[in-house]
């Protein structure tokens, strides 16, 4: 497990943008499916999800979040040195979405801009990457845009349909010698790369005409070759094995104990996974805020969405120490302990 301390980095602000359109997992289905859906909602903990209108993509939400963040902080656009996009829903296979957004946001040609291809573990990885760049001296201000458009309203995969919501978040970091250190622990296990995968569309499996048809898989669910396949049991086993251990190791590596941490914000996978992780770590529910019920699994945005919608008032009252932990597609995981104080944290933006 890679562990690291990052110094001189201040968490300056966070904005979140979600589609206004909400789908209900219980209401929006035929009456004969109601009872089955209620059982599903009880177990995955997701009642509603935000879903982009046709034609709206991740970077459209990200642009709005970024504009709000930059304006709210009062940052001159010319003062922003780096723009990192963490997403698995890029505008195009190439070029990187961050570079397109550099132009749309009106940032300078001196901006460092690139994408990171990570999902559920991406928030802490983004903080580590951008924070490391700023702490190396020279660059002062950076923004990272994190999230995905994971919804696929035309999918026939019921498990998938009820799980994912769309969201984009913008986070501002700044070089500041008075900031408290951030602590990180990260890992990867590519032997599980098929647990969450889109098989067709890369160079290993170029798209063929049959990938665009819905064909029944081994599990009886019909999918296109370009749809996401989730291996639920493998993801569950990975999450409940790896995450509690890696969180415990991060706390051990830091100067803190579990009691010194005010809130634990986990990737919002599903209720079963999150509750198991919480119980294994022995954490009280009030220290583990959740956004699953209203927003579903929002991929890499789920940690900032939870901070924005569940901890905004608390963070407005004074300094809080947070442990953030993301895990999933890759397989990949990353956790971080950081203090947040006087950060710009406006209300959720809906478009």
């Amino acid at each position: 497990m890679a562990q690291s301390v990052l110094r001189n980095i201040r968490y300056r602000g966070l904005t979140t943008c979600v589609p206004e359109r909400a789908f209900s997992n219980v209401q929006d289905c035929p009456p004969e499916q109601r009872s089955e859906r209620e059982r599903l909602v009880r177990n995955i903990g997701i009642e509603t999800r935000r879903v982009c209108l046709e034609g709206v993509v991740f970077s459209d939400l990200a642009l709005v979040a970024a504009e709000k963040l930059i304006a709210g902080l009062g940052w001159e656009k010319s003062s922003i040195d780096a723009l990192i996009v963490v997403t698995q829903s890029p505008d195009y296979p190439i070029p990187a979405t961050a570079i397109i957004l550099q132009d749309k946001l009106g940032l300078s040609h001196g901006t460092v801009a690139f994408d990171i291809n990570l999902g559920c573990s991406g928030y802490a990885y983004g903080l580590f990457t951008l924070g490391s760049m700023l702490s190396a001296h020279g660059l002062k201000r950076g923004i990272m845009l994190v999230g995905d458009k994971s919804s696929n309203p035309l999918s026939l995969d019921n498990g998938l349909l009820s799980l994912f919501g769309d969201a984009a978040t913008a986070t501002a970091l700044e070089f500041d010698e008075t900031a408290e250190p951030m602590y990180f622990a990260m890992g990867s296990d590519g032997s599980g790369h098929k647990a969450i995968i889109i098989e067709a569309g890369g160079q290993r499996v170029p798209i063929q005409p049959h990938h665009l048809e819905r064909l029944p898989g081994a599990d009886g669910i019909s999918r296109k070759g370009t749809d996401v396949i989730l291996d639920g049991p493998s993801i569950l086993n990975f999450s409940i094995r790896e995450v509690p251990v890696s969180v415990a190791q991060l706390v051990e590596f830091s100067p803190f104990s579990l009691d010194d941490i005010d809130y634990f914000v986990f990737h919002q996978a599903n209720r079963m996974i999150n509750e198991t992780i919480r119980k294994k770590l022995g954490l009280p529910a009030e220290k583990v805020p959740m956004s699953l019920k209203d927003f579903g699994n929002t991929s890499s945005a789920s940690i900032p969405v939870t901070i924005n919608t569940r901890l905004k008032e608390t963070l407005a009252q004074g300094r809080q120490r947070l442990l953030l932990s993301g895990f999933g597609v890759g397989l990949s995981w990353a956790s971080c302990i950081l203090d947040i104080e006087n950060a710009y944290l406006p209300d959720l933006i809906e478009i």
Partner: protein
Amino acid sequence: MSTIETFIEKFNEAVDFQEPVDVSADTRLETLPEWDSLAALGVIVMCDMEYKKTITGNDLANCQTITDIYKLVA
């Protein structure tokens, strides 16, 4: 004290049946209306938390009856 009776109780809770179902040690999983991917996840969590045993999706796919699952954790 671990018995098949307590295992069946925990199994019923993990599967979260919509209507009460009479489950015994010999009940074949394929006859249960709710034996689906959600039930499998519930049973994997239950085996991990209650019996400290990791059960994979393949392990479950190879089980025909409740007793077969019980043998994996007992």
